[in-house]
Protein backbone atom coordinates (compact mmCIF):
# COMPACT_ATOMS: atom_id res chain seq x y z
CA UNK A 1 0.00 0.00 0.00
CA UNK A 2 1.20 3.45 -0.77
CA UNK A 3 1.97 5.57 2.22
CA UNK A 4 1.30 9.25 2.28
CA UNK A 5 3.87 11.86 2.93
CA UNK A 6 3.31 15.47 2.12
CA UNK A 7 6.85 16.69 2.19
CA UNK A 8 7.70 20.27 2.84
CA UNK A 9 8.45 21.50 -0.66
CA UNK A 10 11.73 23.03 -1.66
CA UNK A 11 11.29 26.47 -0.14
CA UNK A 12 12.98 28.45 -2.85
CA UNK A 13 10.43 27.20 -5.37
CA UNK A 14 7.49 28.13 -3.28
CA UNK A 15 8.29 31.78 -2.69
CA UNK A 16 7.74 33.14 -6.15
CA UNK A 17 4.35 34.26 -7.42
CA UNK A 18 2.51 34.67 -10.68
CA UNK A 19 4.46 36.78 -13.20
CA UNK A 20 4.09 37.51 -16.91
CA UNK A 21 7.52 35.99 -17.45
CA UNK A 22 6.18 32.84 -15.82
CA UNK A 23 3.13 32.83 -18.07
CA UNK A 24 5.39 33.23 -21.13
CA UNK A 25 7.54 30.34 -19.95
CA UNK A 26 4.44 28.24 -19.37
CA UNK A 27 3.09 28.96 -22.86
CA UNK A 28 6.46 28.14 -24.36
CA UNK A 29 6.51 24.78 -22.56
CA UNK A 30 2.99 24.10 -23.80
CA UNK A 31 3.82 24.95 -27.41
CA UNK A 32 6.97 22.88 -27.39
CA UNK A 33 5.59 19.85 -25.60
CA UNK A 34 2.83 19.03 -28.07
CA UNK A 35 3.98 17.21 -31.18
CA UNK A 36 1.55 18.97 -33.49
CA UNK A 37 3.20 22.40 -33.02
CA UNK A 38 6.54 21.36 -34.48
CA UNK A 39 4.90 19.31 -37.21
CA UNK A 40 2.65 22.20 -38.24
CA UNK A 41 5.54 24.62 -38.42
CA UNK A 42 7.58 22.10 -40.40
CA UNK A 43 4.68 21.59 -42.78
CA UNK A 44 4.40 25.35 -43.34
CA UNK A 45 8.13 25.63 -44.07
CA UNK A 46 8.12 22.64 -46.42
CA UNK A 47 5.06 23.93 -48.26
CA UNK A 48 6.76 27.28 -48.79
CA UNK A 49 10.04 25.73 -49.95
CA UNK A 50 8.62 23.04 -52.21
CA UNK A 51 6.11 25.37 -53.89
CA UNK A 52 8.73 28.10 -54.32
CA UNK A 53 11.29 25.73 -55.82
CA UNK A 54 8.76 24.17 -58.20
CA UNK A 55 7.69 27.59 -59.46
CA UNK A 56 11.33 28.64 -59.80
CA UNK A 57 12.27 25.47 -61.68
CA UNK A 58 9.35 25.77 -64.12
CA UNK A 59 9.72 29.53 -64.46
CA UNK A 60 9.17 30.70 -68.04
CA UNK A 61 9.37 34.08 -69.74
CA UNK A 62 5.59 34.47 -69.50
CA UNK A 63 5.67 34.51 -65.68
CA UNK A 64 5.45 38.22 -65.28
CA UNK A 65 4.44 40.19 -62.23
CA UNK A 66 1.13 41.96 -62.10
CA UNK A 67 2.59 45.07 -63.75
CA UNK A 68 3.94 43.06 -66.61
CA UNK A 69 7.28 43.42 -64.84
CA UNK A 70 9.14 40.22 -64.19
CA UNK A 71 9.29 39.61 -60.41
CA UNK A 72 11.69 36.77 -59.60
CA UNK A 73 11.32 37.39 -55.85
CA UNK A 74 7.58 36.92 -56.03
CA UNK A 75 8.02 33.66 -57.94
CA UNK A 76 10.08 32.09 -55.16
CA UNK A 77 7.62 33.29 -52.48
CA UNK A 78 4.57 31.78 -54.20
CA UNK A 79 4.19 29.17 -51.47
CA UNK A 80 3.49 31.86 -48.88
CA UNK A 81 -0.25 31.77 -49.42
CA UNK A 82 -0.42 28.08 -48.52
CA UNK A 83 2.08 28.35 -45.71
CA UNK A 84 0.04 31.20 -44.22
CA UNK A 85 -2.89 28.92 -43.84
CA UNK A 86 -0.81 26.30 -42.06
CA UNK A 87 0.69 28.76 -39.56
CA UNK A 88 -2.83 30.11 -39.07
CA UNK A 89 -3.87 26.59 -38.07
CA UNK A 90 -0.96 26.51 -35.62
CA UNK A 91 -2.29 29.72 -34.06
CA UNK A 92 -5.81 28.33 -33.87
CA UNK A 93 -4.65 25.09 -32.26
CA UNK A 94 -2.70 26.78 -29.45
CA UNK A 95 -6.04 28.01 -28.08
CA UNK A 96 -8.74 25.72 -29.46
CA UNK A 97 -6.94 22.56 -28.33
CA UNK A 98 -7.04 23.92 -24.78
CA UNK A 99 -10.80 24.16 -25.00
CA UNK A 100 -11.27 20.77 -26.67
CA UNK A 101 -9.11 18.99 -24.08
CA UNK A 102 -10.15 20.94 -20.99
CA UNK A 103 -6.58 22.20 -20.49
CA UNK A 104 -8.00 25.74 -20.47
CA UNK A 105 -9.38 25.06 -16.96
CA UNK A 106 -5.88 24.33 -15.68
CA UNK A 107 -4.55 27.35 -17.53
CA UNK A 108 -7.10 29.88 -16.33
CA UNK A 109 -7.09 28.56 -12.78
CA UNK A 110 -3.36 29.32 -12.67
CA UNK A 111 -3.78 32.74 -14.30
CA UNK A 112 -7.18 34.05 -13.18
CA UNK A 113 -6.61 37.50 -14.71
CA UNK A 114 -6.63 35.65 -18.07
CA UNK A 115 -5.28 38.34 -20.40
CA UNK A 116 -1.63 37.40 -19.76
CA UNK A 117 -2.48 33.96 -21.17
CA UNK A 118 -3.65 35.46 -24.47
CA UNK A 119 -0.66 37.79 -24.61
CA UNK A 120 1.65 34.88 -23.79
CA UNK A 121 0.18 32.75 -26.54
CA UNK A 122 0.55 35.55 -29.09
CA UNK A 123 4.16 36.07 -28.01
CA UNK A 124 5.24 32.44 -28.22
CA UNK A 125 3.42 31.82 -31.50
CA UNK A 126 5.07 34.86 -33.08
CA UNK A 127 8.35 33.88 -31.43
CA UNK A 128 8.19 30.47 -33.10
CA UNK A 129 6.69 31.47 -36.45
CA UNK A 130 8.67 34.60 -37.29
CA UNK A 131 12.23 33.23 -37.11
CA UNK A 132 11.36 29.92 -38.73
CA UNK A 133 9.44 31.50 -41.59
CA UNK A 134 12.07 34.21 -42.05
CA UNK A 135 14.75 31.54 -42.41
CA UNK A 136 12.43 29.63 -44.74
CA UNK A 137 11.84 32.73 -46.87
CA UNK A 138 15.58 33.29 -47.21
CA UNK A 139 16.18 29.64 -48.01
CA UNK A 140 13.55 29.40 -50.71
CA UNK A 141 14.56 32.79 -52.12
CA UNK A 142 18.22 31.87 -52.42
CA UNK A 143 17.52 28.37 -53.72
CA UNK A 144 14.89 29.58 -56.17
CA UNK A 145 17.02 32.43 -57.53
CA UNK A 146 19.90 29.99 -58.06
CA UNK A 147 17.57 27.70 -60.00
CA UNK A 148 16.27 30.52 -62.16
CA UNK A 149 19.64 32.04 -62.99
CA UNK A 150 20.92 28.52 -63.71
CA UNK A 151 18.11 28.22 -66.26
CA UNK A 152 19.14 31.50 -67.83
CA UNK A 153 16.22 33.51 -66.46
CA UNK A 154 16.43 36.87 -64.69
CA UNK A 155 16.94 36.52 -60.96
CA UNK A 156 17.10 38.76 -57.90
CA UNK A 157 19.61 39.20 -55.06
CA UNK A 158 18.94 39.99 -51.40
CA UNK A 159 20.48 43.42 -51.91
CA UNK A 160 18.09 44.39 -54.74
CA UNK A 161 15.53 47.10 -53.94
CA UNK A 162 12.52 45.76 -52.08
CA UNK A 163 13.81 42.20 -51.74
CA UNK A 164 14.78 42.35 -48.09
CA UNK A 165 11.47 44.04 -47.29
CA UNK A 166 9.64 41.28 -49.16
CA UNK A 167 11.41 38.51 -47.24
CA UNK A 168 10.93 40.13 -43.84
CA UNK A 169 7.40 41.14 -44.84
CA UNK A 170 6.47 37.58 -45.74
CA UNK A 171 7.64 36.34 -42.32
CA UNK A 172 5.73 39.21 -40.69
CA UNK A 173 2.59 38.28 -42.63
CA UNK A 174 2.96 34.67 -41.50
CA UNK A 175 3.21 35.86 -37.90
CA UNK A 176 0.18 38.09 -38.36
CA UNK A 177 -1.93 35.26 -39.78
CA UNK A 178 -0.83 33.02 -36.89
CA UNK A 179 -2.02 35.73 -34.47
CA UNK A 180 -5.35 35.96 -36.32
CA UNK A 181 -5.52 32.18 -35.77
CA UNK A 182 -4.92 32.61 -32.03
CA UNK A 183 -7.68 35.22 -31.88
CA UNK A 184 -10.16 33.11 -33.87
CA UNK A 185 -9.39 30.05 -31.76
CA UNK A 186 -10.02 32.09 -28.63
CA UNK A 187 -13.25 33.66 -29.88
CA UNK A 188 -14.76 30.48 -31.37
CA UNK A 189 -13.20 27.97 -28.91
CA UNK A 190 -13.50 25.33 -31.57
CA UNK A 191 -10.82 24.06 -33.93
CA UNK A 192 -12.99 23.32 -36.95
CA UNK A 193 -14.95 26.55 -36.71
CA UNK A 194 -11.85 28.70 -36.29
CA UNK A 195 -10.00 27.06 -39.18
CA UNK A 196 -13.02 27.40 -41.45
CA UNK A 197 -13.32 31.06 -40.58
CA UNK A 198 -9.63 31.57 -41.26
CA UNK A 199 -9.87 29.87 -44.66
CA UNK A 200 -12.93 31.94 -45.49
CA UNK A 201 -11.27 35.24 -44.64
CA UNK A 202 -7.92 34.48 -46.26
CA UNK A 203 -9.01 32.52 -49.35
CA UNK A 204 -12.72 32.32 -50.03
CA UNK A 205 -13.69 35.96 -49.57
CA UNK A 206 -11.01 37.32 -51.95
CA UNK A 207 -11.93 34.70 -54.58
CA UNK A 208 -15.67 35.10 -54.20
CA UNK A 209 -15.35 38.86 -54.07
CA UNK A 210 -13.60 39.06 -57.41
CA UNK A 211 -16.33 36.87 -58.90
CA UNK A 212 -19.48 38.46 -57.56
CA UNK A 213 -18.70 42.10 -56.84
CA UNK A 214 -19.47 44.66 -59.57
CA UNK A 215 -16.32 45.71 -61.39
CA UNK A 216 -16.87 49.40 -60.65
CA UNK A 217 -15.97 49.09 -56.98
CA UNK A 218 -14.62 45.54 -56.71
CA UNK A 219 -10.99 46.57 -56.40
CA UNK A 220 -11.80 49.27 -53.87
CA UNK A 221 -13.12 46.57 -51.55
CA UNK A 222 -10.75 43.73 -52.32
CA UNK A 223 -7.61 45.74 -51.64
CA UNK A 224 -8.66 45.99 -48.00
CA UNK A 225 -8.79 42.21 -47.50
CA UNK A 226 -5.92 40.82 -45.41
CA UNK A 227 -4.32 38.85 -48.26
CA UNK A 228 -4.25 41.86 -50.61
CA UNK A 229 -3.24 44.25 -47.84
CA UNK A 230 -0.23 42.09 -47.07
CA UNK A 231 0.61 41.76 -50.78
CA UNK A 232 0.94 45.53 -50.82
CA UNK A 233 3.97 45.39 -48.56
CA UNK A 234 5.36 41.95 -49.43
CA UNK A 235 5.53 42.30 -53.23
CA UNK A 236 8.63 43.74 -54.82
CA UNK A 237 6.43 44.71 -57.77
CA UNK A 238 2.94 45.25 -56.31
CA UNK A 239 -0.07 45.12 -58.60
CA UNK A 240 -1.82 48.35 -59.64
CA UNK A 241 -4.94 47.68 -57.58
CA UNK A 242 -3.15 47.28 -54.28
CA UNK A 243 -2.73 49.84 -51.52
CA UNK A 244 0.62 51.52 -50.98
CA UNK A 245 3.04 49.59 -48.78
CA UNK A 246 2.50 51.65 -45.57
CA UNK A 247 -1.27 51.67 -46.02
CA UNK A 248 -1.22 47.94 -46.74
CA UNK A 249 0.75 47.30 -43.57
CA UNK A 250 -1.68 49.43 -41.56
CA UNK A 251 -4.74 47.66 -42.98
CA UNK A 252 -3.17 44.24 -42.33
CA UNK A 253 -2.39 45.30 -38.77
CA UNK A 254 -6.04 46.19 -38.27
CA UNK A 255 -6.99 42.68 -39.44
CA UNK A 256 -4.70 41.29 -36.75
CA UNK A 257 -5.51 43.67 -33.91
CA UNK A 258 -9.31 43.77 -34.15
CA UNK A 259 -9.88 40.00 -33.74
CA UNK A 260 -7.32 40.02 -30.95
CA UNK A 261 -9.17 42.77 -29.08
CA UNK A 262 -12.46 40.90 -29.51
CA UNK A 263 -10.74 37.76 -28.20
CA UNK A 264 -9.39 39.65 -25.18
CA UNK A 265 -12.76 41.16 -24.28
CA UNK A 266 -14.56 37.81 -24.60
CA UNK A 267 -11.85 35.98 -22.68
CA UNK A 268 -12.37 38.32 -19.74
CA UNK A 269 -16.15 38.18 -19.90
CA UNK A 270 -17.10 34.60 -20.62
CA UNK A 271 -17.19 31.66 -18.26
CA UNK A 272 -14.37 29.27 -19.03
Amino acid at each position, binding site marked *: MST*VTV*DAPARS*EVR*SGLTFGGVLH*SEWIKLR*SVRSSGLTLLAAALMMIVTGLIFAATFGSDSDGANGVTDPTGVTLTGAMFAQLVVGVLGVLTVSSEYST*GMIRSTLTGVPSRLPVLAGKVAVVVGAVFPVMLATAFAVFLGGQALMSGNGHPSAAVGDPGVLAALVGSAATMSGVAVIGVALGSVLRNTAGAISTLVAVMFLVPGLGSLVLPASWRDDVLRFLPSNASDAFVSVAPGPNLLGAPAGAAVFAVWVVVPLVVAAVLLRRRDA
Partner: protein
Amino acid sequence: MIEVENLTKRYGPRTAVDGLSFTVRPGTVTGFLGPNGAGKSTTMRVLVGLDAPTSGATKVNGRRYREHRAPLREIGVLLEARAVHPGRSARDHLRAVGATHGIGARRVDEVAEMVGLTDVTRRRAGNFSLGMGQRLGIAVALLGDPHTVMLDEPVNGLDPDGIRWIRHLLKDLAAQGRTVFVSSHLMSEMALTAEHLVVVGRGRLIADISVAELIESAGRGVHVRTPRADDLVRLLTGDGVRITTAGTGTLDVDGLSTEDIAERALAAGIPLYELTPQRASLEEAYTELTRDAVEYRGTASREAA
Protein backbone atom coordinates in the same frame (compact mmCIF):
# COMPACT_ATOMS: atom_id res chain seq x y z
CA MET B 1 -10.36 29.12 4.40
CA ILE B 2 -13.17 29.24 1.87
CA GLU B 3 -16.08 31.67 2.14
CA VAL B 4 -19.17 31.52 -0.02
CA GLU B 5 -21.57 34.41 0.52
CA ASN B 6 -25.06 34.30 -0.90
CA LEU B 7 -23.82 32.81 -4.16
CA THR B 8 -26.20 32.49 -7.07
CA LYS B 9 -25.19 31.20 -10.48
CA ARG B 10 -27.54 30.88 -13.41
CA TYR B 11 -26.75 29.38 -16.80
CA GLY B 12 -29.45 30.78 -19.01
CA PRO B 13 -32.77 29.72 -17.50
CA ARG B 14 -31.17 27.06 -15.31
CA THR B 15 -30.24 28.01 -11.75
CA ALA B 16 -27.25 25.90 -10.73
CA VAL B 17 -26.56 27.58 -7.39
CA ASP B 18 -29.25 29.46 -5.51
CA GLY B 19 -28.29 31.77 -2.64
CA LEU B 20 -25.66 29.48 -1.19
CA SER B 21 -23.62 30.56 1.86
CA PHE B 22 -21.11 28.61 3.91
CA THR B 23 -17.60 28.76 5.29
CA VAL B 24 -14.95 26.06 5.18
CA ARG B 25 -12.43 26.25 8.03
CA PRO B 26 -8.83 25.10 8.11
CA GLY B 27 -7.57 22.09 10.01
CA THR B 28 -10.33 19.64 9.15
CA VAL B 29 -11.58 17.83 6.10
CA THR B 30 -14.88 19.33 5.01
CA GLY B 31 -17.06 17.28 2.73
CA PHE B 32 -19.16 18.98 0.06
CA LEU B 33 -22.01 16.62 -0.34
CA GLY B 34 -25.05 16.56 -2.54
CA PRO B 35 -26.77 14.60 -5.26
CA ASN B 36 -25.56 14.95 -8.83
CA GLY B 37 -26.62 18.31 -10.23
CA ALA B 38 -26.78 19.96 -6.80
CA GLY B 39 -24.35 22.73 -7.78
CA LYS B 40 -21.14 21.43 -6.21
CA SER B 41 -18.96 21.68 -9.31
CA THR B 42 -20.43 25.07 -10.21
CA THR B 43 -19.61 26.42 -6.75
CA MET B 44 -16.03 25.18 -7.12
CA ARG B 45 -15.70 26.70 -10.59
CA VAL B 46 -16.86 30.06 -9.27
CA LEU B 47 -14.45 29.81 -6.33
CA VAL B 48 -11.43 29.66 -8.66
CA GLY B 49 -12.76 32.26 -11.08
CA LEU B 50 -13.58 29.98 -14.00
CA ASP B 51 -17.21 31.09 -13.90
CA ALA B 52 -18.44 34.47 -12.77
CA PRO B 53 -21.19 34.50 -10.13
CA THR B 54 -24.58 35.87 -11.17
CA SER B 55 -24.71 37.42 -7.71
CA GLY B 56 -23.01 36.95 -4.37
CA ALA B 57 -19.31 36.47 -3.77
CA THR B 58 -16.72 33.86 -2.95
CA LYS B 59 -13.41 34.24 -1.15
CA VAL B 60 -10.39 32.04 -0.80
CA ASN B 61 -8.16 32.70 2.21
CA GLY B 62 -9.85 36.05 2.79
CA ARG B 63 -9.68 37.45 -0.72
CA ARG B 64 -11.36 37.02 -4.04
CA TYR B 65 -9.42 34.41 -6.01
CA ARG B 66 -8.43 36.78 -8.79
CA GLU B 67 -6.88 39.24 -6.34
CA HIS B 68 -4.26 36.80 -5.10
CA ARG B 69 -0.72 37.41 -6.30
CA ALA B 70 0.06 33.71 -6.36
CA PRO B 71 -3.26 31.89 -6.81
CA LEU B 72 -1.75 28.41 -7.03
CA ARG B 73 -0.14 28.89 -3.62
CA GLU B 74 -3.48 29.82 -2.08
CA ILE B 75 -5.64 27.01 -3.37
CA GLY B 76 -4.92 23.80 -5.23
CA VAL B 77 -7.80 22.50 -7.26
CA LEU B 78 -8.84 19.27 -8.88
CA LEU B 79 -11.93 19.83 -10.98
CA GLU B 80 -14.17 16.99 -11.99
CA ALA B 81 -13.83 17.50 -15.71
CA ARG B 82 -10.57 16.55 -17.37
CA ALA B 83 -8.15 19.46 -17.61
CA VAL B 84 -5.11 17.99 -19.34
CA HIS B 85 -3.98 17.98 -22.99
CA PRO B 86 -3.72 14.27 -23.86
CA GLY B 87 -0.74 14.82 -26.16
CA ARG B 88 1.44 16.27 -23.42
CA SER B 89 3.46 14.21 -20.96
CA ALA B 90 2.48 14.36 -17.30
CA ARG B 91 5.75 16.08 -16.51
CA ASP B 92 5.32 18.75 -19.19
CA HIS B 93 1.78 19.34 -17.98
CA LEU B 94 2.99 19.90 -14.42
CA ARG B 95 5.86 22.05 -15.64
CA ALA B 96 3.58 24.20 -17.79
CA VAL B 97 1.15 24.82 -14.93
CA GLY B 98 3.95 25.43 -12.43
CA ALA B 99 5.94 27.72 -14.72
CA THR B 100 3.35 30.49 -14.38
CA HIS B 101 4.33 30.76 -10.71
CA GLY B 102 8.03 30.08 -11.18
CA ILE B 103 7.62 26.55 -9.85
CA GLY B 104 10.38 24.48 -11.40
CA ALA B 105 11.34 20.92 -12.20
CA ARG B 106 12.33 20.05 -8.63
CA ARG B 107 8.89 20.67 -7.19
CA VAL B 108 7.31 18.95 -10.21
CA ASP B 109 9.29 15.80 -9.47
CA GLU B 110 8.37 16.13 -5.80
CA VAL B 111 4.63 16.18 -6.37
CA ALA B 112 4.88 13.44 -8.99
CA GLU B 113 6.48 11.29 -6.33
CA MET B 114 3.86 12.27 -3.74
CA VAL B 115 1.05 11.00 -5.97
CA GLY B 116 2.96 7.95 -7.12
CA LEU B 117 3.46 8.90 -10.76
CA THR B 118 7.26 9.10 -10.80
CA ASP B 119 7.66 6.17 -13.18
CA VAL B 120 5.21 7.44 -15.75
CA THR B 121 5.80 11.21 -15.83
CA ARG B 122 7.26 11.04 -19.32
CA ARG B 123 4.27 9.21 -20.69
CA ARG B 124 1.58 11.12 -22.52
CA ALA B 125 -1.36 11.96 -20.29
CA GLY B 126 -3.74 10.68 -22.99
CA ASN B 127 -2.54 7.14 -22.28
CA PHE B 128 -3.27 7.40 -18.55
CA SER B 129 -5.98 5.35 -16.89
CA LEU B 130 -8.76 7.22 -15.12
CA GLY B 131 -7.01 6.64 -11.80
CA MET B 132 -3.65 7.90 -13.05
CA GLY B 133 -5.42 10.92 -14.50
CA GLN B 134 -6.89 11.65 -11.07
CA ARG B 135 -3.46 11.35 -9.49
CA LEU B 136 -2.06 13.77 -12.04
CA GLY B 137 -4.87 16.20 -11.24
CA ILE B 138 -4.09 15.90 -7.54
CA ALA B 139 -0.39 16.50 -8.29
CA VAL B 140 -1.40 19.76 -10.01
CA ALA B 141 -3.44 20.72 -6.95
CA LEU B 142 -0.43 20.18 -4.69
CA LEU B 143 2.10 21.97 -6.95
CA GLY B 144 1.95 25.33 -5.20
CA ASP B 145 1.98 23.82 -1.68
CA PRO B 146 -1.34 25.64 -1.19
CA HIS B 147 -3.02 26.65 2.09
CA THR B 148 -6.31 25.36 0.79
CA VAL B 149 -6.97 22.22 -1.23
CA MET B 150 -10.24 21.74 -3.10
CA LEU B 151 -10.97 18.48 -4.87
CA ASP B 152 -14.07 17.65 -6.90
CA GLU B 153 -14.97 13.96 -6.64
CA PRO B 154 -11.34 12.88 -6.16
CA VAL B 155 -12.04 9.18 -5.69
CA ASN B 156 -13.64 8.87 -9.13
CA GLY B 157 -11.83 6.17 -11.03
CA LEU B 158 -9.43 5.27 -8.24
CA ASP B 159 -8.92 1.66 -7.26
CA PRO B 160 -9.38 0.65 -3.58
CA ASP B 161 -5.69 1.26 -2.94
CA GLY B 162 -5.97 4.70 -4.48
CA ILE B 163 -9.07 5.49 -2.46
CA ARG B 164 -7.26 4.59 0.76
CA TRP B 165 -4.36 6.72 -0.37
CA ILE B 166 -6.60 9.72 -0.99
CA ARG B 167 -8.22 9.43 2.45
CA HIS B 168 -4.82 9.44 4.11
CA LEU B 169 -3.67 12.34 1.98
CA LEU B 170 -6.70 14.46 2.84
CA LYS B 171 -6.41 13.80 6.56
CA ASP B 172 -2.70 14.50 6.38
CA LEU B 173 -3.24 17.83 4.64
CA ALA B 174 -5.87 18.83 7.20
CA ALA B 175 -3.61 17.80 10.07
CA GLN B 176 -1.01 20.23 8.74
CA GLY B 177 -3.54 23.01 9.26
CA ARG B 178 -4.67 23.35 5.68
CA THR B 179 -8.24 23.85 4.57
CA VAL B 180 -9.43 20.72 2.80
CA PHE B 181 -12.69 20.84 0.85
CA VAL B 182 -13.76 17.69 -0.95
CA SER B 183 -16.90 17.07 -2.91
CA SER B 184 -18.67 13.78 -3.31
CA HIS B 185 -22.12 12.48 -4.04
CA LEU B 186 -21.41 9.46 -1.86
CA MET B 187 -22.03 9.76 1.86
CA SER B 188 -20.21 6.50 2.49
CA GLU B 189 -17.02 8.04 1.15
CA MET B 190 -17.38 11.25 3.16
CA ALA B 191 -18.17 9.30 6.33
CA LEU B 192 -14.64 7.92 6.25
CA THR B 193 -12.76 11.16 5.60
CA ALA B 194 -14.72 14.24 6.52
CA GLU B 195 -15.35 15.68 9.97
CA HIS B 196 -17.61 18.41 8.75
CA LEU B 197 -20.19 18.45 5.99
CA VAL B 198 -21.69 21.08 3.75
CA VAL B 199 -24.75 19.41 2.23
CA VAL B 200 -26.42 20.96 -0.83
CA GLY B 201 -29.36 20.06 -2.99
CA ARG B 202 -30.73 21.89 -6.02
CA GLY B 203 -28.21 24.63 -5.50
CA ARG B 204 -29.27 25.40 -1.94
CA LEU B 205 -27.71 24.74 1.40
CA ILE B 206 -29.37 21.84 3.17
CA ALA B 207 -27.02 21.48 6.12
CA ASP B 208 -23.73 22.85 7.40
CA ILE B 209 -23.08 20.35 10.12
CA SER B 210 -20.44 18.16 11.72
CA VAL B 211 -20.58 14.47 10.94
CA ALA B 212 -21.24 13.73 14.63
CA GLU B 213 -24.16 16.18 14.74
CA LEU B 214 -25.63 14.74 11.60
CA ILE B 215 -25.74 11.26 13.08
CA GLU B 216 -27.19 12.72 16.26
CA SER B 217 -29.91 14.60 14.40
CA ALA B 218 -30.96 11.71 12.25
CA GLY B 219 -34.09 9.97 13.46
CA ARG B 220 -33.11 7.32 15.95
CA GLY B 221 -35.54 4.81 17.34
CA VAL B 222 -35.71 1.88 19.67
CA HIS B 223 -36.46 -1.60 18.50
CA VAL B 224 -38.68 -3.42 21.01
CA ARG B 225 -39.81 -7.03 21.14
CA THR B 226 -42.61 -7.97 23.50
CA PRO B 227 -45.40 -10.59 23.64
CA ARG B 228 -47.88 -7.84 24.66
CA ALA B 229 -47.28 -5.41 21.80
CA ASP B 230 -50.79 -3.95 21.84
CA ASP B 231 -50.59 -3.13 25.54
CA LEU B 232 -47.19 -1.54 25.12
CA VAL B 233 -48.44 0.63 22.24
CA ARG B 234 -51.32 1.92 24.42
CA LEU B 235 -48.92 2.55 27.29
CA LEU B 236 -46.32 4.45 25.29
CA THR B 237 -48.53 6.41 22.93
CA GLY B 238 -48.28 10.12 23.63
CA ASP B 239 -46.91 13.45 22.45
CA GLY B 240 -43.91 13.21 20.11
CA VAL B 241 -43.89 9.45 20.20
CA ARG B 242 -44.19 7.53 16.99
CA ILE B 243 -44.68 3.81 17.04
CA THR B 244 -44.65 1.48 14.08
CA THR B 245 -45.26 -2.22 14.08
CA ALA B 246 -42.34 -4.03 12.58
CA GLY B 247 -43.83 -7.51 12.69
CA THR B 248 -45.58 -9.80 15.13
CA GLY B 249 -44.55 -8.74 18.59
CA THR B 250 -42.00 -6.18 17.45
CA LEU B 251 -42.26 -2.40 17.54
CA ASP B 252 -40.12 0.51 16.46
CA VAL B 253 -40.50 3.35 18.91
CA ASP B 254 -39.38 6.84 18.02
CA GLY B 255 -39.17 9.65 20.59
CA LEU B 256 -38.48 7.72 23.80
CA SER B 257 -35.22 6.55 25.27
CA THR B 258 -34.56 2.90 26.07
CA GLU B 259 -34.60 3.86 29.78
CA ASP B 260 -38.08 5.39 29.50
CA ILE B 261 -39.48 2.39 27.70
CA ALA B 262 -37.93 -0.11 30.09
CA GLU B 263 -39.15 1.68 33.23
CA ARG B 264 -42.70 2.20 31.99
CA ALA B 265 -42.95 -1.42 30.79
CA LEU B 266 -41.68 -2.66 34.15
CA ALA B 267 -44.22 -0.52 36.03
CA ALA B 268 -47.03 -1.93 33.88
CA GLY B 269 -45.72 -5.46 34.19
CA ILE B 270 -45.15 -5.86 30.45
CA PRO B 271 -42.23 -8.21 29.72
CA LEU B 272 -39.65 -7.08 27.17
CA TYR B 273 -37.63 -9.64 25.25
CA GLU B 274 -35.55 -7.13 23.38
CA LEU B 275 -34.78 -3.42 23.66
CA THR B 276 -32.28 -2.17 21.07
CA PRO B 277 -31.40 1.46 20.33
CA GLN B 278 -31.29 1.97 16.57
CA ARG B 279 -28.57 4.20 15.25
CA ALA B 280 -29.25 5.71 11.85
CA SER B 281 -26.35 5.21 9.52
CA LEU B 282 -24.83 8.31 7.96
CA GLU B 283 -26.18 7.09 4.67
CA GLU B 284 -29.71 7.07 6.04
CA ALA B 285 -29.23 10.46 7.66
CA TYR B 286 -28.03 11.85 4.36
CA THR B 287 -30.86 10.27 2.39
CA GLU B 288 -33.29 11.78 4.87
CA LEU B 289 -31.72 15.23 4.42
CA THR B 290 -31.66 15.21 0.65
CA ARG B 291 -34.96 13.42 0.10
CA ASP B 292 -36.59 16.47 -1.45
CA ALA B 293 -33.51 17.69 -3.24
CA VAL B 294 -32.68 14.83 -5.53
CA GLU B 295 -32.91 16.13 -9.05
CA TYR B 296 -32.96 12.90 -10.97
CA ARG B 297 -34.75 10.06 -9.31
CA GLY B 298 -36.00 6.91 -10.95
CA THR B 299 -39.70 6.16 -10.48
CA ALA B 300 -38.86 2.81 -8.91
CA SER B 301 -36.89 4.41 -6.11
CA ARG B 302 -39.58 7.07 -5.70
CA GLU B 303 -42.09 4.35 -4.94
CA ALA B 304 -39.66 2.65 -2.63
CA ALA B 305 -39.14 5.92 -0.75
